[in-house]
Structures are given as C-alpha cells and as structure tokens.
C-alpha cells in the first residue's frame, strides 16, 4: 500500500506526542500515564495522516470525528491536538487546573478539537455509532474513529454497540481497542479475562484486524484496510503495552501514577531520546530519497493536512514551569481512575 506519509515520519510524530504528553503530565505531577502512552502511535497515525480535520475550524462539519472513549487518556489527545495546532502549547499547562480547558477526562465543550465528552467507560461506542449513523443519513463521507480500552470492553454497552453497528453495517465507523492487557486494578487476565477480544468482535460481525499498536506502519495499513472495507464496522485491535516508552511500561500500578520529579525527568529524558532517534531515522530516509530523486518535483513526503505536526515543533524543555507542586491531595499511585 502506498501512503502519503512515511512510517519514519509517523514515528517522529508519535514520539513527539509521547514527549509532549509526558511534559503535560509533568506539569501536573500525576495522571493516567499508562493508558496515555499506549495510544500514542494510534493518535500519530490518525492526526498525522488519516483523520480529516482542520485545526483552524474545529467545528468543521465535514471533519472526521474521534471519540476517545477511554477518556482518561485525555493528556495524549491534548498533546496531539496542540501539536496539530488546535491550541497553543501553553494551554497544556491547564491540565487538571480548576477552571481550565483540559480536564482529566475529555470534554467536547472545553477543549478545541475534542469531539466527544467521555470518562464514563463504555459510552463512547454508542456515541460514535450515532455520529456514523447520522453522517450516513446526512450523506456525508466523514468517518468516525473510536478508541476504547480493553478493560472498558468489560462494559455491556460496548457489546450493545457492537451488535448494533454490525446489524447496521456501519462501515464508516473505525474502532480501536487498546489491548494493553491492563486495567485499573491489574492485568485484565486476572481481573476479567477478555480472552480473544478479536474473536469476540468477529463473532459480533465486525471486520477485525489485529496489529502491533506501537508500529505506526501496521496501524496505518490497518486503517487503510478498514477504510476500504465495506458492509461492516471495522475493529482494529491494538496489541500494546500500557505505559509504552516509559519506565512504567507493563508494570503493575501504571494506570494512574503520581510521579516524583526524578521519575518524571527520567521519562522525559527517555522520550526525548526516542524522539531524537526517530528524527534521525526520518532525516536519513529523507536524505536517501533526496539522493534517489534529486529533482525538486518530489520532495520529502509532506502530508497536506497536518501542517502543525510536520515539522514537529517539539522542544525538550518542560512544557511549562510547574506553578505549584503536586498538591497534597494529588491522587496516590493507582488510587484514581
């Protein structure tokens, strides 16, 4: 499959999102680091390439929608939206601030670019279905994307939606499950084993693909295949690691963490290094292509619709000066949802 954007470039975008997400969390001192890190690559593919939107006009009717049903991963989406240009990076310091525009869970009325209010797990699928159905009624070719957690799939509403979307052949709905094998209290296999999630959605009539959720190229291919699929809703099961790219990867208690300054610094450092590596790899690819095609008619691939992400303006300094230390009653590790 030929894509407008190269995997190397998407990798840069992903690592940029990761870094900015961590910087955002650093600003607050605690947060849903695990579930934010595991969807970074998916957000990179969506906002780096696949999702039709206009940062200058967040309410554009013909945009594609994203329902981030696992609304607690808001910080990753906020980082993405700010990189995309929906709002200035300074706004990221509003995370979890009283009166601010970046609540812990996504809110369509507070944050430019957020398409749906989420936080009560299980609800996103129905809303996404409604959007997809409405767009079909409106004869619009907008797509609706949906990201759910694997723990979230414990909720019956997910399966109500699954049945409905299949019955109504909603092929303008492309869903992801962030199969990171952990939920709030521990590993899904211990809390409530979801077994073979893909098989479940297949038995519910969905077109199911299973991919490495940290492999941008694989995700991109899957989304492309999902777009091509007709007559059924698409499910992309993202095989991921909760907390991916940080010291918290796959460890217990990584759902919601209060991080020490040292831990945070370590996270940011690792993310910066990952970003540098990704940039280097992308630069090398460009150089190689430039060598192959010296003519100016084919410069480095530039996705048309994500100016803000490309080139990615990520700096390694902290997102903002931390105005106040993590407050006393900041949620203790693992203690919040």
């Amino acid at each position, binding site marked *: 499959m030929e894509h407008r954007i190269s995997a190397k470039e998407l990798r840069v975008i992903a690592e940029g999102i990761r870094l900015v997400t961590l910087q955002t969390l650093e600003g607050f001192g605690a947060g849903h680091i695990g579930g934010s890190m595991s969807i970074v690559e998916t957000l990179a593919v969506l906002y780096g390439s696949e999702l039709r939107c206009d940062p200058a006009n967040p309410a554009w*009717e013909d945009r594609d*929608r994203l*329902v981030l049903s696992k609304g607690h991963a808001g910080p990753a989406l906020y980082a993405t939206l700010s990189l995309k240009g929906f709002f200035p990076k300074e706004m990221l310091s509003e995370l979890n601030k009283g009166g601010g525009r970046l609540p812990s869970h996504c*809110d*369509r*009325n507070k944050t430019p670019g957020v*398409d*749906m*209010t*989420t*936080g*009560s797990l299980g*609800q996103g*699928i*129905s*809303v*996404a*279905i*409604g*959007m*997809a*159905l*409405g*767009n079909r*009624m*409106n004869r*619009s070719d*907008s797509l*609706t994307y949906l990201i759910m957690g694997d723990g979230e799939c414990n909720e*019956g*509403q997910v399966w*109500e*939606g699954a*049945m*409905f979307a299949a*019955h109504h052949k909603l092929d303008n709905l492309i869903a992801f499950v962030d199969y990171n094998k952990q939920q709030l209290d521990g590993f899904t296999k211990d809390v409530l084993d979801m077994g073979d999630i893909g098989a479940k959605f297949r038995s519910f009539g969905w077109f199911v693909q299973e991919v490495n959720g940290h492999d941008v190229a694989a995700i991109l291919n899957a989304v492309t295949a999902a777009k091509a699929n007709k007559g059924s809703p698409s499910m992309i099961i993202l095989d991921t690691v909760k907390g991916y790219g940080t010291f918290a990867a796959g460890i217990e208690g990584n759902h919601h963490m209060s991080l020490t300054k040292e831990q945070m610094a370590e996270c940011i450092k690792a993310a910066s290094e990952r970003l540098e590596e990704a940039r280097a790899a992308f630069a090398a690819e460009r150089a190689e292509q430039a060598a192959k095609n010296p003519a100016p008619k084919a410069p480095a691939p530039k996705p048309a619709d994500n100016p803000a992400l490309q080139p990615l303006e990520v700096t390694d300094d902290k997102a903002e000066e931390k105005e106040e230390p993590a407050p006393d009653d900041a949620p203790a590790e693992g203690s919040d949802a």
Partner: protein
Amino acid sequence: MAMFKVMDKLEKSPVMMRDAYCTALMDLASENDNIVALDADLVSSSGMKPFFNAYPERAINVGIAEANMVGIAAGLSAVGKIPFVHSFGCFATRKTCDQVMISAAYAKLNVKILGSDPGVTAAYNGGTHMPFEDIGVMRSIPQIKIIEMTDPTMVSDIVRQVAEDYGVHYLRMPRKNVTGIYEPGSTFEIGKGNILRDGDDVTVIAGGIMVAEALRAAARLKDEGISVRVVDMFTVKPVDTDLIARCAKETRAIVTAENHNIYGGLGSAVAEALAKTVPAPVEMVGINDSFGQVGTEDWLRKEYNLTEGEICDAVRRVLQRKKRKFLWFTIDN
C-alpha cells in the same frame, strides 16, 4: 405565551396519547429532515409504527438496548440530528441514567427522551414496568427539562416546542387514552404552570393523570364551600417557582397530586420551591415510597390512593393545618 382553554366537560379524549405523539413527530419530520426517532423494541407499544413506515431512514429500532439508544441519540445530535427516543418510563430512565447524564446532558447535546406509561398507567405490566421514580431519577440531572404531558392537545404543542428547544428533555405520558383537559389548539409555555381553575382556599398542584382528578375534586369541594385552585404543573423541571410562591401567598395551603413517588417528583419540586420562597403547609397525594404491582389502572389508582377522593381528603387535611395556629406563626387575617 400559553393560550389554552380548558374543556367544559371532562371526558376520555378520543385520541390516544401515543397517536398524538406520533402525529406530532411525523408533522415535524415532514418539515425537518433532522428529526429522527429511535426506539428500543417497543415500536409496537409506542404507536410509532406510522413514523417508522413513513420515514424508514430516520427511524431506528435499536433492539432491547436502552443505554445504547441514548448514546446513539447523543451521537446523532452531535452531527445535527434531533433524536427522539422512546422506551417505557422505567427503562427510559433507570437503564440510561449514566448515558443521559454524560453522553447527553453533560456533553450538552440535544436529546429528547420519551418515557411512556408512567406510574399506574403501566397497569398489567406490573411493578418492574411501573415507573414511580422516573422523574426523581431524571430531576437529579442538571439542567434537563422534564415535562409530564397532560393530554393529546398538549402533546401536539409540546413535542413541537421540544424539538426546537436545544437540550435534553424528558417527556412523560401514558400511551393510551387519558382525560382530555385542553381544547384543541391550546398552546403551552414550558416552565409555566397553568391555572385551570381559580380558587382562594387551597391550591392543588397536579400533574399528568392527576390533573383531571384535581379538577373533579375541586368541583366536588365547591359544594362543601371550599374554593380550590387547580394548577397543571406539567413542567416539573424547571418548576414554576413564581407561580408556586404566588399560590402559597394567595391560598396559603397546597396539595400536590402526582402519579409518582412523593419523593423526587412534583411533590418534592413544590416543597423545595416553597421552602425557598413562601413556606406553606403541603399535603402530598402520590405514591408513598412503595413499589408498583399489576392490576387495571382503575384498581391501581384506588390501591395507591390516586383518586379525586384522596385529593379531597388531602385538601381537608391541609385546611386543618392552615387554620391551626401555626406553631410560631399566627394567621395574619
């Protein structure tokens, strides 16, 4: 502005509530492509088959999945549709509470919910299906509007207004025939109670099927020399606090009458309004915190004291309380 006229005679309206509802929605749908109807395997009950036949592309039977239905409605409204969903009042509220709260109300989307067969009108469907609590559940959700539609004339007018009023509305009505209260063509103002009959001694604030009982009680009490004001408080939220305060001021005694638990419904709304404005003695006719059961509607009305007679008794009780030297108040005139 409301422009209503009360019927001369209280009789079963020939038009079923559900037919008035379906007709109103079909009229709207013929003018506005965005009107969408959803149901959860109760189209045969809701009387919405004509709509489903006429507008198959805008009519969705989601199956027995009320939570999903409300979420879908929220999503539809996010792309410009005006969804009207239906289930029995019990399921339209109890099974969807979190979705109405988050996906619809908190997300500031535009979702209209009809809960049919409130309270005793669920009749043979019995306790599991007999919502005495639906208003209480919904009233806890911020900024939602709650309307108990009194008769088919009101249905026609309210459904149209609700479609035009962005936000979340919970509508409540029996599916079948009720007593006609308003003359055809009457119009209503959401948020304002209707004084159906004036009186000086006491005000009966009623809703739904209890409005007719209140009118009958008022007529009967007239013979005893008691002058009863009757208010149809069809908007339970936001309740008409000004009118309630005025009635308290002018009649100094209040009876509420509702086909709902006295906790959480109209009685509560009135008590709150009074406490905050003009404290007055209230007697509440309604369900005394008990569960539903099967029976004919008539049997159930008697079983739960949702009768003209009970309203008369409540009026007499409240007048006793009004007359009594009021603890630390004495009566001014």
